[in-house]
């Protein structure tokens, strides 16, 4: 069972190493000539104003909160989908009640205007 998952580690390692090796190999070929103007932050050719890590709007946070609710739901959906046929009508009704509860939350957020992007 566990040796199925050695592949996961190997694949992730190969992917990471591929990036590292390409960049290191390129280091032998490419020029390296930095000067302050070249290393300045890009802002359409102007001298950058203020810091780059600016504040961003709260709505990103609201959307990610709603996302977390539904993403956790999908984690429950998958095991349910596998054993669905064995559970029959009972499993269906229970899952529909669960999803219905979450949809109620979605409708609430919708009515409250949390889904509006202004």
């Amino acid at each position: 069972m566990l040796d199925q998952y050695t592949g996961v580690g190997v694949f992730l390692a190969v992917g990471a190493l591929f990036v590292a090796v390409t960049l290191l190999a390129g280091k032998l070929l490419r020029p390296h000539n930095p000067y302050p103007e070249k290393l300045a932050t890009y802002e359409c050719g102007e001298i950058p104003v203020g810091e780059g890590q600016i504040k961003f709007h709260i709505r990103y946070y609201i959307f990610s909160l709603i996302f977390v609710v539904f993403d956790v739901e999908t984690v429950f959906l998958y095991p349910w989908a596998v054993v669905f046929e064995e559970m029959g009508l009972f499993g269906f009704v229970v899952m529909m009640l669960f999803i219905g509860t979450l949809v109620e939350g979605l409708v609430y957020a919708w009515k409250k205007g949390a889904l509006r992007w202004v």
Partner: protein
Amino acid sequence: MDFFSAMHSGLVSAGWPLWLANLVPPLVKALILLLFILLNCTFLIWMERKVAGHMQRRMGPMRLGPHGIIQTIADVVKLIAKEDVIPAGVDRWVFVLAPIVAFAPAFAVFMVIPFGPNLIAQDLNIALIFIAALTSFVVISFLMAGWSSNNKWSLLGAMRASAQLISYEVPLVISVASVALLAGSLSLQDIVRAQSQSFWYILVQPIGFLVFLTASLAELNRSPFDMSEAEQELVAGYNTEYSGMRWAIFYLTEYANLITFAAMASTLFFGGWSGPGLPPFVWFMIKVYFFIFLVMWIRWTLPRVRIDQLMDIGWKGLLPLSLVNLAFTGIYVLLR
């Protein structure tokens, strides 16, 4: 596959320690798949430019090789030889790690994709969760790249991209769950077998496929949902400060994800490698390339939507639609 178990037992009998011998078959498979991805991405970048060209009644690249076929290779050579500029203001570690976090999971997904009845690196029984988990790493890499760049465009692009990705991830995952419901399994190989014994799931999942296709376009940051790198507004989005090979890795990841999407679409809804006459691998590649072409076609047909429209489509359109589809799929499976 027999070849790999023979390789494994051969290494063990040659006196290799077991843990080391266990690592060799996945390593060989990983290198083969890496080669496969690199070759296909090289071809796809050329194909994208040709498709774009011909759809606008241009020729696209024509200079290098017949019909510009080795244009991408020339581009890669240029990119390798380009100076790697890391701006002074960046958060260096995060900046350097972001392309790795982008590429490694996008590559590892190929482990569970069935190219044929026996042609699969590892048939995990939780393949769908595995894919859903690894593809969502893209959000982290975008945020890493955007935040560490210390650039306003990068940060805005990354925030938009992650808002878009998380919004469309939910309908995407739910539409895939409907397919898992039909097949009663999360293994991609089982799903293909179930379809080759009955029928392609597109016949009972037309709405599910529509949701899957739309959400995938958004997940791929493809037009009409290419909000995160809207050139007219955000320069290049999250990768504005990246240059040379470091930028090329993001580009490569994008095309690897495109292949993953096409493979998923054909595996989940169009019978994967199953088909009459031709060898399974050929059927699979035909389907994959059809979906890749479809995505390129859509890109040069539809204009970009606005960000508020994008969020509306995701939360108020696709999410309820995918939930209704899931409920009807459940009823269908009960009555089957």
